């Protein structure tokens, strides 16, 4: 495997990235992580960055994610909202699972919201759908279907003009 190099290459697989749970709320614009490279109380956030940050990055492409290293005595995350509010989350001495659980509760979208969004996305993405807001506005644009009669005349056997004409009836 050419890409199975480096530390824990599973972190770079598509399945792993897709299985990330943390999808930040729409109003969050910046997600800044402060931590140190040494210290037992920073161990949890370091592990979180190692294991979960790739997933967070993958799932939140519109959010700016910043790592600020070795500038703080205790680790914390600051979330900046689009209306200027912010939320400071203290993570001193917490392990990576506790951190993830808390973030899911506080800044992540709930499971129900995600489900609804997935359904909405599916509706739009499905190429079999046509009509308003879809890729194709009319069934006639799909190859193999009967085109609109305003653009292409229907075959004769479908037309009343032919079917009920005196000649045909006779």
């Amino acid at each position, binding site marked *: 495997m050419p890409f199975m190099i480096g530390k824990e290459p599973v972190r770079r697989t598509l399945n792993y990235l897709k299985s990330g749970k943390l999808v930040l*709320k729409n*109003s969050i614009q910046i997600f800044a992580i402060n931590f140190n490279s040494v210290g037992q*109380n920073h161990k949890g956030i370091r592990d979180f960055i190692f294991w979960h940050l790739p997933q967070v990055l993958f799932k939140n492409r519109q959010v700016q994610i910043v790592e600020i290293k070795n500038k703080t005595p*205790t680790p914390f995350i600051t979330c900046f*909202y689009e209306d200027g*509010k912010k*939320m*400071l*989350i*203290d*993570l*001193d*001495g*917490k392990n990576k699972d506790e951190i993830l659980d*808390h973030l899911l*509760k*506080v*800044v992540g979208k709930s499971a129900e919201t995600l489900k609804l969004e997935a359904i909405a996305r599916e509706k739009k993405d499905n190429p079999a759908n046509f009509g308003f807001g879809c890729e194709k506005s009319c069934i*006639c*644009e799909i*190859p193999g279907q009967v*085109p609109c009669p*305003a*653009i*292409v*005349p229907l075959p004769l056997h479908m037309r009343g003009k032919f079917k009920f004409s005196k000649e045909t009836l006779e």
Partner: protein
Amino acid sequence: MQAIRLQLQTHNCNFVNLTSIYAQSIRWKRKPIWLPTAKTKVFRVTQRPKIPEEEFLKIKNLYNVYRTSMKSIRLLFLQIGEASQVQEDKGLKQKEMEEDYHRCFALNEEWNKKIAEEREVRLQQERKQKLERIKNTKVKVASKLKKLEEEADAIVKGAKLLAPTFITRDNIDEAIEAALANKVNYNKALNPDGTWFIEKPVNPNPSAPIVDASIKDEQKKIKLNL
């Protein structure tokens, strides 16, 4: 008719932005809308259809039913639309978001508070440990310094004992004479049997050394004490 159809199929519809392969031009089929009524049809008066009274009433009734149903359906759709618009009201959404933020903020505050308490305990413990460590280090350093001082004292003491034997301006002549009188020869040789051949001294009876034996003994004692 067939000829027209063939002609139709030869034209595509790129000019109306239709990329479907089925799209065809109807330009040659119909009369353009801006043209007036054909000369031969200008004075044509269409006859009103003669429908029997009974049939007319039936058709009218059917149309009335149709219009009523359509109207009610349209109104229903309008109601549904309005209801869905209420849900997507910006103000309401904003309010919901605000409420959600406050709820999450309160949760987070609680979490932060808990962590702050835990940190306070941890920091106090660390402070205590640090103070203890400093105390231990201080004791260790003091004992080390004391030992060093004692060693230095011993060296000074020994030096003080030796001081009388130093060669100074006053006894330099005597020292030179003594050195000349007691020549020391370091030349010696070894044969394969392991026998040393030492050159015989020039002066077989050298004078007594300058260093007093008693002083040497004293110095040995000091070193042993250390």
